[in-house]
């Protein structure tokens, strides 16, 4: 029996449960997949937007600007990579320069600070690799980049430290409200809770239907990306956007918090919300879009491509409402959803309080996260201490990202730890470098099998069914 059940462990659910964990409440997160951040949170641009895109008066506009301001503290508290590197919207003709003016005015109305339009010379002095055809740009100093899946993991870890419970691989099949309580049927059994938050991402419309809320639908809109080696990470310093059109924000080029270069996304509505495949024309679109704004990108340095499905709401704005007494919908959290998530969490708590949830601050709230720093990120003293504690910190498993066996063992054995090869990758970046796991994957499988005390054949890449080995050799 829980006070609050949160459905979904993406960035929105993670922010909400972390906020809830500050109060005297018994909470549980119900996640349908094997891990935290397995949906749109692991496959998006990782941009902390300034807030000039969304129309004034919308939830998107309000929560974006509020969320942006919360990022710096949040990430430093949880030791998550974040960089306030600013963004530039590039205009290529007079028409687009006019659009920049519209964005500037909208941004000012939305309360965005540090916005200005700069001319070509200033632009090129900031970013020498911008296309020669650029005319000017909108510079937003408050924009930044973050590692979204690492943030979600860290938020969940912090919530766990403060008593929140988690259940994975539990697909919600039905919800019944009986005597002011929600009886949530899942593939892992029944969960009963007084309050409920629907943060189910791409499936939020289905949960809303189970709750009997006012009908809305989530349109799956897929975005494809190309990730380049760290050798390309310095091509640009800031997030580079093309000028938005009716079709959307267009392709961006950005360094990631780990120093890679990311290109994307395009935006295509798809039929199957689970279809996170990439397409030849889609990847071409991404590359062409990137080349339009930034020159000198060495495309031979692409190390992987991927796609994510955004949950586009049929209403056009974030849907944060009450489908039935005691429950909250947090649906249609497409861009700027990542930026807005911390602010959404505060809003959801207010909403639940109105619904009757009593919020009493915990006196013993714990800060920080579970997973310790990776060996490679430690300073010399910390490295020494880590090595004294566990010699396995001296053994590199992932060469490209320089991740040690000590790091991996720790990430598997800690609470909310990694259970799959992708889980290790998400927490440590092992296998995320230029060789894409070619060298370390066999060894990560071996370590997972040893630490989880199961045969190597049972080790999965990500979800059930994603087995890697088929059996012992003859």
């Amino acid at each position: 029996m829980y006070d609050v059940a949160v459905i979904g462990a993406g960035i929105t659910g993670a922010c909400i449960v972390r906020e809830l964990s500050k109060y005297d409440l018994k909470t549980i997160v119900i996640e349908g997949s094997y891990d935290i951040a397995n949906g749109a949170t692991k496959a998006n641009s990782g941009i902390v937007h300034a807030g000039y895109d969304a129309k004034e008066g919308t939830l998107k506009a309000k929560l974006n600007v509020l969320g942006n301001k919360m990022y710096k503290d949040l990430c430093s508290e949880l030791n998550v990579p974040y960089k306030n590197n600013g963004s530039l919207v590039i205009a290529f003709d007079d028409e687009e320069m006019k659009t920049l003016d519209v964005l500037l005015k909208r941004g000012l109305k939305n309360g965005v600070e540090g916005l200005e339009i700069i001319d070509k010379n200033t632009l090129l002095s900031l970013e020498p690799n911008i296309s020669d055809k650029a005319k000017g740009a909108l510079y937003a100093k408050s924009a930044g980049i973050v590692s979204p899946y690492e943030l979600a993991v860290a938020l969940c870890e912090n919530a766990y430290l403060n008593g929140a419970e988690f259940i994975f691989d539990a697909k919600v099949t039905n919800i019944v409200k009986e005597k002011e309580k929600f009886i949530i049927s899942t593939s892992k059994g029944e969960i009963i809770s007084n309050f409920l938050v629907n943060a189910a991402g791409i499936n939020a419309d289905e949960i809303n239907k189970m709750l009997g809320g006012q009908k809305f639908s989530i349109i799956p809109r897929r975005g494809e990306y190309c990730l380049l080696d760290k050798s390309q990470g310095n091509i640009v310093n800031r997030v580079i956007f093309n000028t938005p059109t009716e079709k959307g924000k267009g392709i961006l080029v950005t360094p990631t918090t780990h120093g890679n270069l990311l290109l994307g996304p395009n935006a295509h509505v798809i039929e199957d919300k689970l279809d996170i495949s990439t397409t030849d024309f889609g990847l071409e679109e991404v590359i062409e879009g990137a080349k339009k704004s930034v020159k000198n990108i060495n495309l031979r340095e692409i190390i992987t491509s991927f796609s994510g499905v955004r949950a586009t709401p049929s209403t056009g704005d974030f849907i944060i409402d009450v489908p039935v007494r005691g429950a909250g919908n947090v649906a249609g959290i497409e861009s700027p959803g990542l930026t807005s998530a911390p602010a959404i969490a505060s809003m959801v708590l207010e909403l639940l309080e109105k619904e009757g949830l009593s919020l009493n601050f915990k006196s013993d709230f714990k800060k920080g996260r579970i997973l310790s720093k990776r060996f490679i990120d430690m300073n010399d003293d910390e490295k020494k201490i880590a090595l004294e504690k566990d010699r396995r910190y001296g053994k590199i498993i992932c060469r490209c990202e320089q991740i040690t066996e000590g790091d991996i063992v720790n990430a598997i054995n800690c609470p909310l730890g990694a259970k799959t090869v992708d889980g290790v990758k998400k927490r440590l970046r092992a296998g995320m470098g230029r060789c894409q796991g070619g060298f370390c994957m066999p060894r990560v499988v071996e370590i997972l099998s040893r630490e989880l005390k199961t045969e190597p054949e049972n080790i999965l890449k990500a979800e059930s069914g994603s087995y890697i080995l088929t059996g012992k050799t003859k």
Partner: protein
Amino acid sequence: MERDLVIIGGGPAGLAAAIEAKEKGIDDILIIERDKSLGGILNQCIHNGFGLHIFGEQLTGPEYADRFIKKALDLGIEYCLNTMVLNMSKDKTITVLNEKEGLFNIKAKAIICAMGCRERTRGALNIPGTRPSGVFTAGAAQRFINMEGYNVGKEVVILGSGDIGLIMARRMTLEGSKVKMVLEIMPYSTGLKRNIVQCLDDFDIPLKFNYTVVKIHGRERLEGVTIAKVDENRKPIAETFEYVKCDTLLLSVGLIPENELSREAGVEIDRVTSGPIVTEAMQTSIDGIFACGNVVHVHDLVDFVTMESRLAGRMAAKYIKGQLKKDEEVINTKGIDGIRYVVPHKINPENVEDNVNFFMRVDNVYKNVIIYAEHDGQVIYKAKKSMVSPGEMESIKIKKDVFQNIKSGEIKFGLRRA
């Protein structure tokens, strides 16, 4: 810690270089190996075919490695295993990490880079589709099967006719997996002819030239791939798309020299080989940093790695003793007309032993050609070849006396019709 000679990598290149340097009088040598044993990738190459040039007999990978390991041990060459070099600097200081000693620095008089290469991945090819399990580089699959003792799939498609892919086609067939086909986007194989015969033909595995994979299917585990024929520009032809059911895709689509350490130190890299630019002494652009084996350019046979690495070991020994001449005036080399690259890139005639062995690769299959070398319009070498192909490395030996008359300028290597 200070050392005369540090060798990064304990595979065939590092071992041969170490043995040679030791025999040439360098006592203080340390080999640093990141894996749990010496021998490098040879340890997972349990097939035979190694050693024909060096030993005049066919050995398996581990047997070939073993001869060098034994020799190194006999000579008392020091090595450390499970040890990773994290950084190398211009002044030949390296930062090293292992379980026993933790993090420490070594200052060396000379360094030989012998880090080998890694495989190109799916990401580098940018193959669209889903990202299920069951997509492996051929080398990763080889490690699972030959070293860990686990098979990786039942129905297999192999993309790329590189040697590891060909070897794995046979290996997985012997494990009871069904290898449906090997696809090669080029009109010729990038692997050795003998491997095509022994690994595909002998097992009736079809090799489809001008074919590639255009899409990967399956949400959790690989379920199939869409294959397609490509046109002369290597673009897939829509009418030829065909779905092939499989649970495993092996990629054997090229190897990339691992030069992250070299780059950080500021070693100049050849864009074609992705390896360091080297001299006749296998010295990189940084004084006292040498390189040999697959870290310089991808070799077809380990025997040639051994030859090149022995040279690097000898020259590093000379360097440490102060006997290697500085490259004040050098002859540059260059590949033209069908020759993609030439190693070494620079020749200082004063350091040339009896001759210089030039290694090169051609850009296509050519029949009845002459490989020539010319300097200042004058042909200094030519040899007839009935066939050359990109899968096989060409090597040319030019005698020392040829360099007596030329001290600078450029030697161009090319192909012309016989």
